[in-house]
């Protein structure tokens, strides 16, 4: 899907307007730009007309979903309230796309807690990201490499069998009551059977973030760390942890499968 026929850069998708029918073929309508900035979004145009008072509100059988590329005045423009924001693009003088800014919503207004620690007070831990309303922030936090291609232009990030992979960096924040009391940053980590934490042969290995709170002279000391343990039951992670991945490893320490288990929180 692309606003320009020779640049297919946005992935396959599906949406459901209020008629209830599923739509997965949307053509982008490029309305042109003088500023060189365009905002891309999906919208039901009849519903937009209803919101603006230009169409009778009782009509629910008209399905007019379109994908639009509309001129914008800034890199963080306001999207129509009933639209699904997709991206902002920057065009150069001859109409080539030079920048793409992901604007897809996360459908969250704040980051949910993944752990609660009760220990002389109640402590909560959650992913520490800059703007929880944008999907791209969750996407990059503790990134698990993708083992499948989204399209010929977006290939996979790991191939199997492989001996190891890089798990992306992430950050965990802690609160006590409503007060922020600390942030633990975990750098990008290479994971194989030779690392610590590492993978175990002939097993399903689960990777997740664990947290704990210790006390030093009455002051809470928070900590978060990556842990890897083996399991017999795929998909069931220890409670009070942030699930990240499952790696299936064979008898000669080669990774045969890697599944992203990070929650969407929705």
């Amino acid at each position, binding site marked *: *899907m692309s606003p320009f026929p020779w*640049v297919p*850069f*946005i*992935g*396959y*998708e*599906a*949406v*459901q*307007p*209020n008629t209830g029918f*599923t739509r*997965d073929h949307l053509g982008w309508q490029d309305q042109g730009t003088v500023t060189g900035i365009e905002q891309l979004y*999906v*919208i*039901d145009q009849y*519903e937009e007309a209803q919101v603006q008072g230009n169409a009778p509100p009782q009509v629910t059988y008209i399905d007019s*979903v379109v994908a639009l590329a509309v001129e914008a005045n800034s890199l963080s423009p306001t999207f129509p*309230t*009933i*639209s*699904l924001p*997709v*991206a902002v693009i920057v065009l150069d003088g001859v109409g*080539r*796309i*030079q*920048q*793409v800014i*992901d604007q*897809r919503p*996360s459908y969250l207004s704040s980051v949910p807690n993944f752990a609660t620690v009760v220990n002389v007070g109640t402590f909560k831990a959650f992913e520490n990201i800059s703007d929880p309303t944008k*999907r*791209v922030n*969750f*996407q*990059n936090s503790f990134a698990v490499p*993708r083992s*499948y291609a*989204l399209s010929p232009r*977006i290939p996979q990030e790991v191939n199997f069998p492989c001996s190891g992979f890089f798990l992306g960096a992430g950050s965990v924040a802690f609160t006590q009551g409503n007060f922020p009391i600390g942030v633990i940053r975990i750098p990008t980590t290479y994971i194989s059977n030779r690392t610590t934490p590492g993978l175990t042969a002939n097993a399903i290995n689960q990777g997740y973030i664990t947290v704990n709170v210790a006390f030093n002279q009455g002051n809470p000391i928070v900590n978060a760390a990556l842990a890897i343990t083996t399991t017999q039951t795929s998909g069931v992670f220890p409670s009070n942890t942030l699930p990240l991945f499952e790696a299936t490893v064979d008898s000669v320490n080669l990774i045969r499968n890697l*599944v*992203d*288990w*990070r*929650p*969407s929180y*929705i």
Partner: protein
Amino acid sequence: MPVTELPLAIVSSQQSGSIVQGNRSQRTSWINSFYVPRQPTAIT
């Protein structure tokens, strides 16, 4: 109401009519839906 986005996944997905739907609770499903490349696509 805005149009409802249906998360899509290429892995762990189930067929519903002609649409392959993902698991709403998994982050990968949302990454794949309307995938936007992380790197700018500079066309020269």
